[in-house]
């Protein structure tokens, strides 16, 4: 349990650091991009909305940095992230609430699936070193060097198009209204196949490689020799003895690289115009919508922290040593 508490404390600290970075970025930059945006929408914004933007971006120069900081925290805890200019006059939190489920479904499921598939392939590649699987490694290296978004573009050109089964953009059929009906879910799944495939292909090879290398390292441990000597079946030794131990560093590696992966997968949403957080970020960048950008960064960071915590729990379950009290 001590391990878990330590990790939770660390994530809280990281969340604080991320929010503080988020607080300082707009304040360190010369010029006031937000003021000009607000001037554009003058008269259409309520005084409350203006006030919340003042607090978020430190436009009120008379306040000290400390009181700005305190006010900023108060506002974050109320879930007030300001108004989005792209989707004026929708609040940022409202925009994010709509797009977050899409991203979690697409990126979450595909990242997890890619980890599972890559790890299983890596187990085999590491165990049968010198077989055909080794010839696959350069191919997977090449695939992982391709930027996600470019693979997405390629997939659209080759597989999508008029009359194709795969739609080239969007998260669902334009005429449908998001709901829990069969036709909508079917359409959503159909739209997510191509983005999911793109993410899967370009992210799976990293897992294959790290797992292979861990398997190679573990395979020369004494307990593997003992397991062989006991006459256990090859499969049993591979799965229950070697893979189980090789998996541990891979799980903690998974937690640490989540930040990188999520960053890359957000781009796939951009290419496919998928209605998730990544596409929001793209729209925000295009319109210089700073409140939305900051909101997206916050949500992504917090989700990654949460995913990290889950990976830690998985580690706890997989490795009995961490559960030992004391």
């Amino acid at each position, binding site marked *: 349990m001590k391990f878990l508490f330590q990790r939770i404390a660390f994530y809280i600290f990281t969340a604080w650091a991320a929010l503080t970075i988020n607080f300082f970025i707009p304040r360190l930059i010369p010029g006031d991009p937000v003021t000009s945006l607000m001037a554009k929408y003058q008269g259409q914004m309520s005084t409350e909305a203006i006030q919340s933007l003042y607090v978020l971006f430190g436009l009120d120069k008379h306040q000290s940095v400390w009181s700005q900081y305190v006010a900023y925290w108060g506002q974050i805890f109320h879930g007030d992230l300001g108004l989005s200019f792209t989707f004026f006059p929708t609040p940022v939190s409202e925009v994010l609430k709509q797009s977050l489920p899409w991203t979690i479904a697409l990126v979450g499921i595909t990242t997890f699936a890619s980890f599972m598939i890559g790890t299983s392939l890596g187990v085999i590649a590491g165990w049968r070193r*010198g077989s055909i699987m080794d010839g696959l490694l350069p191919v997977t290296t090449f695939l992982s060097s391709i930027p996600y978004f470019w693979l997405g573009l390629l997939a659209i050109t080759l597989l999508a198009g008029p009359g194709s089964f795969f739609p*080239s953009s969007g998260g669902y059929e334009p005429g449908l209204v998001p709901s829990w009906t069969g036709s909508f879910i079917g359409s959503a799944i159909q739209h997510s196949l191509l983005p999911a495939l793109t993410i899967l292909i370009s992210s799976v090879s990293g897992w294959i490689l790290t797992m292979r*290398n861990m398997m*190679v390292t573990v395979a020369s441990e004494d307990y593997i020799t003992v397991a062989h000597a006991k006459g256990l079946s090859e499969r049993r030794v591979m799965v229950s003895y070697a893979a189980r131990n090789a998996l541990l560093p891979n799980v903690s590696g998974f937690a640490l690289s989540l930040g990188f992966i999520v960053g890359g997968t957000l781009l796939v949403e951009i290419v496919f115009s998928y209605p998730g957080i990544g596409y929001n*970020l793209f729209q925000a*960048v295009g319109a210089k919508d700073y409140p939305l950008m900051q909101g*997206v960064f916050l949500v992504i960071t917090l989700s990654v922290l949460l995913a990290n915590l889950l990976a830690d729990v998985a580690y706890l379950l997989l490795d009995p040593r961490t559960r030992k009290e004391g």
Partner: protein
Amino acid sequence: MTATIAAVTPAATPTPAKRRRLRFVANPKAATGLVVLAFFCLIAIIGKWIAPYDPSARSSDLIQAPSAKHWFGTTHLGQDIFSQVLVGTRGVMYVGLLAGLVATALSILIGVSAGFLGGAADDSLSALSNVFLVIPALPLIIIVASTIPSAGDLMVALVIGFTSWAWGARVLRAQTLSLRRRDYVEAARATGESTWRIITFEIMPNLTAIIASGFVGTVIFAVMSEITLAFIGISTISEWNWGTILFWAQSQQALAQGAWWWFVPAGLAIAILGTALSLINFGIDEFVSPRLRSSGHTRVKTNDGHSVRMRVGFTPVLSSKQAPATPVVRRKENAA
């Protein structure tokens, strides 16, 4: 007697020394990677001069497929894509290498001092690098770069460098921790060497491989991030790089027009550069830990027709057809 030895030995000595120096390059993966990287560096330097056209110059050949005149075809304004790719190489390599240098310097500074100093300094420095590791770097880079007005190549490189040092710092810290109590470091300390001398002359040389692979890894990440920034239109579009080409291809609906030549060359160039850098990294990994090498032929036939698969760390087991089972005689105890 001595004369014969002298006559024999000199002929033999130069070969091993030479081999040792070129051992890293002798690794086929590393060699391939280095050659490709050198090629891209060359293009980065001379690309501006060997480009057949001005990359921004318009012409009347709108959206043309690749031909002898335009090797990679043309854009919606009749710009030559081959020239754009050649000229754009410089920006990509410049940002990649500069960001890699900045990040590596930071990771050495933070990682090695955290590992060597220990105590409170270690705790705070590793907390710092863990925070930077967990915070998703790309969204952070996007936000910082888009907040800075007119982010040029130098600015982008610095932003990427300052946000992507954490992984290297973590790895370096772990390795430094294991080195710092080794006998030779203790000996250096006992002879009164200063802390700085120990760090730079005793510890750093033993971290070379890790530093190198960290550098290469960061360059990969920096190139990807830079191209991403250009692709979503954050960095200035007046400077050509591969991401800018993809940006125009995307914004001008190259896909819908079937203009595959517009985005295929730039993407392939990214993938090839990335592969080359990864290959160098594999070369470094295998150089440090030879066990990771993909071993060639492993199946060995024995004289009596059995085949054995030789694997490092495994006791070879004869995979015979069916070993005659030892007859087991069961005593009928129950019956008695």
